[in-house]
C-alpha cells in the first residue's frame, strides 16, 4: 500500500513474575502501521494488546518486563533506546491515549498545565505560547469554553471530557502515530460515538496513523483500515477490515464474530459461543494456543504451534486449515 510508519517485528515481551513463572504476554508479534492508516488490534482480555502498545511506547518497567525484537518508528529503532532519547519521541512523534479516562490524568494539576507541559517539553515554546496553543487544542477537541477549561482540574470533568483532554494531549505535538488503547471501553455508547468521531477528525487534521486497540468488533468495523486479531499473545489473523468481517478465516475470528449479538441482524435464537476461556499467559498449551477451544482442532494442532501464514497480500492466518492457501511461509 503505502510506506510503513511503524514496523514491529518479532516483538516478545515476557514478564518475570518470579523465578518459576514467566508470563509471555506478547509472544513474537510482527506487524506494521502504514502512514495515514488505522490499524486495529482486537482480542480478548489478556491477549496482550495493551502490552504490545506499551512495549512500543517503551512504557513498561524492566524488570519485570523483558522486551525483545524490534520496533521501528519511521525507520528508527526504539527498542534499546535510552529513556532520554525515548522521551524525545514519546508525546512528540508518537503518543498514546488510554482506556481509563478517569485515572489517566494527574488529579493535582490543571488541564491547561497538563497539556502545556507536553508542548513546552517538545516544542520548546514559551509558557504563553503554550497556553494559546492549549486553548486552540481544547477547541479542536470540541470544548466551547476552552479558556476556562484550562484552569480546571480533571475531577471537574466527566469521563468523555477527560478522554477528549487526553486526545488533546496526545495530539499536542502533532504526532505521526497515535496509539489508542481501548479509548472508548469505559464510556457510554453515545459518548463513544463522539470520541470515535473526534479521533477520525484529528486523524484527518494531523494526518497521523492510528494504532487502535479494542475488543469491540463494532468499533473496528467503523474505524479500521486493517485489523490484527490477537489471541494469547500472538497474532492469529491479519486482514483488511472489509475482508475480516466479510470473510473471517481463523476459527477464533469466526467464533468471535458469531458469538457477538448484532444489533442489525435478525434475531438469532442462540448465539454461537466459543467454549472455554483464554489460557492464562503463564501456561499456554503447546501447539496452537486456540486448539483447546477450537471446533476444528486436530492432533496436528495440539502437537505443534502453527506459523502465521501469509495467505495473500494483506492477509495472514495462524491456522493449519489454511496451509494450502499460504503464499509463503
Amino acid at each position, binding site marked *: 500500500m503505502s510506506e510503513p510508519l511503524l514496523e514491529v517485528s518479532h516483538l516478545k515481551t515476557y514478564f518475570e513474575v518470579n523465578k518459576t513463572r514467566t508470563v509471555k504476554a506478547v509472544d513474537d508479534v510482527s506487524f506494521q502501521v502504514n502512514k495515514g492508516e488505522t490499524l486495529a488490534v482486537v482480542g480478548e482480555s489478556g491477549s496482550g494488546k495493551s502490552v504490545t502498545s506499551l512495549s512500543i511506547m517503551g512504557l513498561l518497567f524492566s524488570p519485570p518486563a523483558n522486551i525483545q525484537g524490534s520496533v521501528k518508528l519511521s525507520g528508527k529503532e526504539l527498542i534499546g533506546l535510552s529513556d532520554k532519547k525515548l522521551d524525545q519521541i514519546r508525546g512528540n512523534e508518537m503518543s498514546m491515549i488510554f482506556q481509563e479516562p478517569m485515572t489517566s490524568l494527574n488529579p493535582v494539576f490543571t488541564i491547561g498545565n497538563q497539556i502545556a507541559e507536553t508542548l513546552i517539553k517538545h516544542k520548546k515554546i514559551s509558557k504563553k505560547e503554550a497556553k494559546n496553543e492549549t486553548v486552540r487544542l481544547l477547541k479542536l477537541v470540541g470544548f466551547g469554553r476552552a479558556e476556562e477549561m484550562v484552569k480546571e482540574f480533571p475531577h471537574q470533568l*466527566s469521563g468523555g471530557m477527560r478522554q477528549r483532554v487526553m486526545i488533546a494531549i496526545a495530539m499536542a505535538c502533532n504526532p505521526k502515530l497515535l496509539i489508542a488503547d481501548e479509548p472508548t471501553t469505559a464510556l457510554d*455508547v453515545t459518548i463513544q460515538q463522539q470520541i470515535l468521531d473526534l479521533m477520525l477528525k484529528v486523524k484527518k487534521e494531523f494526518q497521523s496513523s492510528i494504532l487502535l486497540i479494542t475488543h469491540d468488533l463494532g468499533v473496528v468495523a467503523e474505524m479500521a483500515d486493517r485489523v490484527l486479531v490477537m489471541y494469547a499473545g500472538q497474532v492469529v489473523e491479519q486482514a483488511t477490515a472489509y475482508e475480516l468481517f466479510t470473510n473471517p478465516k481463523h476459527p477464533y475470528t469466526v467464533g468471535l464474530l458469531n458469538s457477538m449479538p448484532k*444489533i442489525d441482524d435478525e*434475531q438469532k435464537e442462540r448465539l454461537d459461543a466459543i467454549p472455554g476461556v483464554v489460557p492464562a499467559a503463564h501456561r499456554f498449551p503447546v501447539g496452537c494456543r486456540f486448539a483447546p477451544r477450537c471446533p476444528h482442532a486436530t492432533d496436528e494442532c495440539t502437537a505443534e504451534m502453527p506459523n502465521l501464514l501469509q495467505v495473500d497480500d494483506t492477509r495472514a492466518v495462524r491456522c493449519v486449515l489454511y496451509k494450502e492457501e499460504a503464499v509463503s511461509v
Partner: protein
Amino acid sequence: MTDKKVPLVEVKGLKKYFPINKGVLQRKVGDVKAVDDVSFTIYKGETLGIVGESGSGKSTLGRMVLKLIDATEGEIIFNEQNFAKIKNSEVRKLRRDMQMVFQDPYASLNPRMSIGELLEEPLLVHKTISSKEGRKEKAFELLEKVGLPREAYSKYPHEFSGGQRQRIGIARALSTNPEFIIGDEPVSALDVSVQSQVLNLMQDLQKEFDLTYMFIAHDLSVVKHISDRVAVMYLGRIVEIADKDILYKKPLHPYTQALISAVPSTDVTIKREKVALTGELPSPANPPKGCAFHTRCPHVHDRCKVERPILTQQGEGQMTACHLYTTEAAAAKAE
C-alpha cells in the same frame, strides 16, 4: 411465550431520591433523583431489558424492585403482594422467589467463601434443605446446570475467570428456585466470547425453569438479543418502552434513536445514518426542567423545556415519553 401475559411484577410511580447532605449538621440540600416516577409491568416468563447510559438509574431501579433498598415513593407488586405492605421478615421469605445477578463478577462473590458455601448459603438461610448432604447434592446439581464441574465445589472465587464467576453467581441465584431474576449488567464485564456463553446459559435456564428476567444492560445489542421487551431509561425515567422488534426497527424517542444509531455496527457493507448526540448526560442531582432530554435533543422545541412529557401509548406494544408524539397523538385523537 408472552401471549399469556400474566403480570409478575408491577411497578407504579416508583421513585428513589437519594438525599444530598452537606455541612456540619448534614442538612439535606437536595436530592439525587436516581429513579423518578417509573412504572412498568413485567409479565411471567418474559425478559424485560432495561437500557440507558451510566447513571440513568438502572441499578437503583433493579435494587428497589428486589427491595434491597427502599423506594422513596411508589408501589411494587410482586406476585400480587404489595411490597410496601409486607413486613421486613416477610421480605426475607420473598427473596426466595426473586434473585439478582450482579455486574461485577469479581466483587459480587464473597472472596472468603468457597463455591460450595456460596451456593449453599441461600438454602441454609431459607432452610429449604435441612440436611447437609442434601444441600451438597443441590449444589452439585446447580454447578452442573451452569456448566461447571463438580470440583468447583470446594474451590474459591479467585480461582475462576470472570465468566465462570458469573456462572457461579447465576447458580447462586438459582438455588432457591426463584421465579424472577434481575440481572444487573450480568455480562457487561465479560469478553464477547464469554459473554455469549453466559447469555446462552441464561436463555437456557429461562426455558428450563420458566424464569422471568429483568435484564439491565447498557449494550443495546445484548439487550436486543435477550429481551422480549425493552425499556430505555434516561435520567431516572423511562423514555420509551416497547416490544423489542418494534423498538429496534422503529424507535420513536429521539434518545432511543440516537442510542441505537450510536452502536457501532460490524456490518461493513452498509453505512448507517448516525444521529449524533452532543453533550453529556446531565446530573440527576440537577436534572433539566421539562423533558430531561431536551438539552441534547436534536428536535427540541419550546414546550420540551417547560413541560415534562409522560409515557404514552404509541400503537401496539410501544410507549414513548416525548412531546413529538404527544402532540401527534393528541392531534390524531382529536381528528
